[in-house]
């Protein structure tokens, strides 16, 4: 039968080996304290990554390029006029834009593959005042893997995605996520 010393030896060995492995596999990032994340130079439609760049025509005849907005917090929202949950959250997004545009917030309400007429009717119905990029062929939606609508990305002034969400957002949730990307003060 194994005695006490044998077991305590096993515990000590496990402690030494475990600590050595933890030490060897530390995250090699300076100032790594905090929560998450991956290399900020990689691009992917996911929190912790650089937001994929795109350039799209807007409903009002202009163009918008995401990388040109560097230095400003950006809320990217993929939507379509036929999507019920998009309709329910759109007033909250417009209100957030009105409340925070003076702090530099940019909202890009990217319409997914619809005609200008349908989009114009929707914009008029909800009184939207932020830019509406037109993803006519769905290329940007595919890059952002926006398979369900609505899908939103909260991008900080450095171009890093800080949060994503698929589904309708309440005003409180939008505000809580904007707190993470809008510089304080």
């Amino acid at each position, binding site marked *: 039968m194994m005695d*006490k010393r044998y077991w305590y030896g096993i*515990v000590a060995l496990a402690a030494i080996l*475990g600590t050595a492995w933890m030490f060897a596999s530390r995250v090699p990032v300076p100032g790594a304290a905090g929560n998450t994340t991956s290399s900020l130079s990689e691009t992917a439609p996911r929190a912790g*990554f650089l937001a994929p760049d795109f350039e799209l025509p807007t409903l009002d005849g202009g163009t918008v390029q995401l990388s040109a907005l560097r230095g400003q917090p950006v809320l990217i929202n993929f939507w379509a006029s*036929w999507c019920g949950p998009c309709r329910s959250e759109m007033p909250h997004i417009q209100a957030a834009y009105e409340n925070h545009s003076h702090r530099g917030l940019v909202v890009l309400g990217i319409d997914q593959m619809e005609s200008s007429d349908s989009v114009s009717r929707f914009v008029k119905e909800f009184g939207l005042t932020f830019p509406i990029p037109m993803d006519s062929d769905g290329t940007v939606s595919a890059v952002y893997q926006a398979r369900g609508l609505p899908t939103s990305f909260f991008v900080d002034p450095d171009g890093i995605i800080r949060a994503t969400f698929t589904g309708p957002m309440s005003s*409180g*949730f939008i505000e809580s996520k904007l707190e993470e990307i809008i510089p304080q003060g």
Partner: protein
Amino acid sequence: MTMFPVINVGPAAIQAPGLILMVGFWLSLSLASRRAKAEGVPENAVYNAGFVGMLFGLIGARLGYVAQHWSAYQNDLSGVLALSTEALSTEIGLMVGLGAGTLYLYRYRVSVPALLDVLAPAIALFLAFVSLANLSSGSGFGSITDLPWAIELWGARRHPTQIYELLAAVGTLAMLWWFIRHKPFAGFLFLLLLLIYGSARLFLDAFRADPWTLTGGFRGVQVVSLAMVLLSLWLMGRHVAKHSSV
């Protein structure tokens, strides 16, 4: 590799990870309930405690999130009642849910080691579903590697950490299943869960690219896993020492 975080059924978009977790929770609860009888724990107690824990956990998760972001909610409290998966604080939800489930079980005066043995295989099964949910959403992704079994994810070839963790959970469950009929003392299955799954996560978390990082670059999950392993070994050792000295 293509992830499927959302399944489109007509106009409805179903969140696949949430669906997988719900199925996993239900199957785990069913497994725990089936095993309860064999361990002398009232079958209904486990089921009811599971649902009480889930209900209070969800309420706690939402209220916890609102408390953490009070300035965002104070002007419009309607979002507190939003029927969606948004705005949930996982850690607070888990604490409240576990607390509520435990309090509920307290009234049944259940033996703690027996209860932990009932829960151990169910926890391993649920952890397997958590890995599947991560595989579906692309969460818990691995670091970049050129190993032949790497998967293409988030723009790079990465360690398939979700699959590593799935195998760890399934392996743990298989081991626990074998020991159900051969366990040397009450509480052993739970200690074995801590030991095997803790060892696996201690090793595997080194390959995660999205770690919960502590001061000094130490990985939080590894610290918790090592504590689980040491606690398990120490308690097993105490049991062995007690019995060898008789």
